[in-house]
């Protein structure tokens, strides 16, 4: 059945049921969402089949124009540059590591940054670009913090001598990785709540109770908490694969610790850093439970915006436009960064 040399082609029969199932639930709904974004909202949910560009106009250009001032231009610039960096740095690193043109990677990042900046400018204080920007910035914070927390940990694990110790430490990372996202997010919510254990401890030490929940701090903490294993595991794989002799050689030749770290260690674990950062970022930017349970409010991050438009606000075309734009950006950057590189292949 499965030997290629058998000559017979059973692949169609093997492929057809699963492929059509996944196409039906992932490909067709994605196309449908683009169609929905061009329709008219129906009161109480759903759509009326009248074509219009209203939803897209609202995504890109709603908000009061009179608000555009230097501050808007400034933040648009900052967001544009940030977005460019976010996309072009990993893209360039990837392009270099597989020997492909770096210009295209840079251009892709530039286009993305321009889009973000224009989006921000066009909207003035538009809610939607603010939500997009906030999601991106918070997820970037989470990514950076995860890198900082994961680096010493993976080096520590991989420098253990005994195989058993290594495995035990790794399993200890994987248990939270497999545990329900809901439980993990609730754990943070419980810990930080106004009458929760943390505040009780603070009070018993003689300080005043603090409001931790429904703050940016709580959301970023939750993002880091839920995504950290996704940084640790690929980074660990990269460290294990790296050549320790090179580190020793660099040190023996008199390189300072910082130089060994930036010029020998980081390039060696680059593939793991790229995969881990991409995973953490993509997971965080689409998070629903963390901003809902730890952020309060209604439109903290993109997922809340989608929930709002498909739920209470009953503007499905607007939600569809946001979803289409969001998944386009996510899937494009994923394929660019990891999908086409055999070494970093998700499969």
């Amino acid at each position: 059945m499965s030997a290629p040399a058998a000559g017979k082609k059973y692949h169609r029969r093997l492929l057809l049921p699963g492929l059509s199932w996944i196409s039906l639930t992932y490909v067709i709904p994605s196309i449908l969402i683009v169609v929905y974004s061009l329709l008219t909202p129906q009161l109480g949910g759903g759509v009326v089949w009248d074509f219009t560009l209203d939803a897209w106009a609202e995504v890109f250009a709603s908000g009061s124009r009179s608000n555009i001032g230097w501050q808007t231009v400034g933040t648009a610039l900052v967001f544009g540059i940030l977005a460019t960096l976010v996309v072009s740095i990993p893209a360039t690193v990837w392009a270099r590591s597989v020997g492909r043109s770096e210009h295209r990677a840079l251009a892709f990042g530039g286009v993305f940054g321009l889009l973000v900046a224009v989006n921000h400018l066009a909207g003035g204080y538009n809610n939607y670009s603010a939500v997009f920007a906030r999601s991106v910035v918070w997820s970037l914070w989470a990514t950076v913090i995860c890198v900082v927390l994961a680096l010493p940990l993976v080096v520590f694990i991989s420098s253990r001598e005994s195989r058993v110790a290594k495995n035990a430490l790794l399993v200890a990372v994987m248990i939270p990785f497999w545990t329900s996202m809901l439980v993990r997010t609730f754990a943070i919510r419980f810990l930080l709540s106004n009458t929760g254990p943390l505040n009780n401890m603070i009070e018993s030490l003689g300080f005043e109770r603090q409001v931790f929940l429904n703050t940016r701090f709580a959301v970023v903490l939750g993002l880091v908490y839920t995504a950290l294993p996704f940084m640790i595991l690929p980074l660990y794989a990269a460290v294990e694969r790296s050549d320790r002799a090179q580190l020793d050689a660099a040190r023996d030749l008199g390189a300072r610790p910082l130089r060994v770290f930036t010029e020998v260690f980081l390039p060696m674990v680059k593939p793991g850093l790229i995969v881990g950062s991409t995973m953490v970022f993509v997971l965080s930017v689409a998070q629903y439970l963390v901003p809902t349970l730890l952020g309060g409010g209604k439109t903290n991050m993109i997922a809340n915006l989608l929930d709002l438009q498909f739920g209470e606000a009953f503007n499905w075309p607007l939600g569809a436009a946001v979803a289409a734009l969001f998944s386009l950006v996510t899937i494009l950057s994923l394929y660019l960064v990891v999908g086409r590189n055999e070494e970093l292949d998700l499969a």
Partner: protein
Amino acid sequence: MSMSSTRAKVLMGAATWGVYLFLYIPVLILVLFSFNQARTGGTWTGFTTKWYTALAGNGRIISATWNSIQIAAISTVIAVVLGTMLSLAIDRYSYRGRKTAQQIVYLPVIAPEIVTGVSLLAFFSLVIGALNDFLGRDAGNAIRMGKATIIIAHVAFGAAFVALTVRASLRNLDPAVEEAAQDLGATPWATFWKVTLPGIMPGVLGGALLALTLSLDNFVITFFVSGPGSTTLPIEVFGQLRRTISPEVNAVSTLIFAASSVLLIAALGIQAGVATRRSGQVTTVSSTPEEGVPDQ
């Protein structure tokens, strides 16, 4: 990294244990307070198991758990069959469009759940609306989203993860063995049952456990495709913890945490079994560092 000084080593060890504390303290506090006497707040007032007893009488939690188990069991069985077939089609044959097929199969692994959720909501409401019109159902007896739509969604991502896991096993199974079986006269069907399936069984079991866990834990996609009467455990817990702070929610979260830890250890046990068996063989299969790390 620069490990020349002992001080650096000590610092790194401290940082590592700090991260482990960060990973575990919130969950452990949650578990601890599921045994707390007081109904509200984070002050320890004494040990009790009454919240667990209360769970046993909580009809909503019980029926949600039953729904979750039904949905996970059915979708895992279908996902394992479809996913194994997909992995064979992708790994053992070459044909035009194979790469595209592979990219479609792995879509559920990379697509943001929230986008999948709202897309499926749009898709199912369109299909079900058309179906109701066609059958002439009115509001009273209309077809609605429910267990069936949840299962359809869970099968899709389950199959993708099973395909991913089984492929890892297939790569370690030399196609020459299957060819030999066929050369010796085994039918393709017999080759599959007697040679291929036993060889990839660890991958199939690991994939099944992964699909089961993902289905039991799934919140975001399920949230958008569920209907009245099909509330799953995560959806019920989410609703309860948004409404009230009650140690009952801590208790049910503790049980979920325990169940997923058991499932993980089972999955790792299977993988470890494979590794031992493989190292016992004389084959040249070299183990890569990522083994034991689930693909995501």
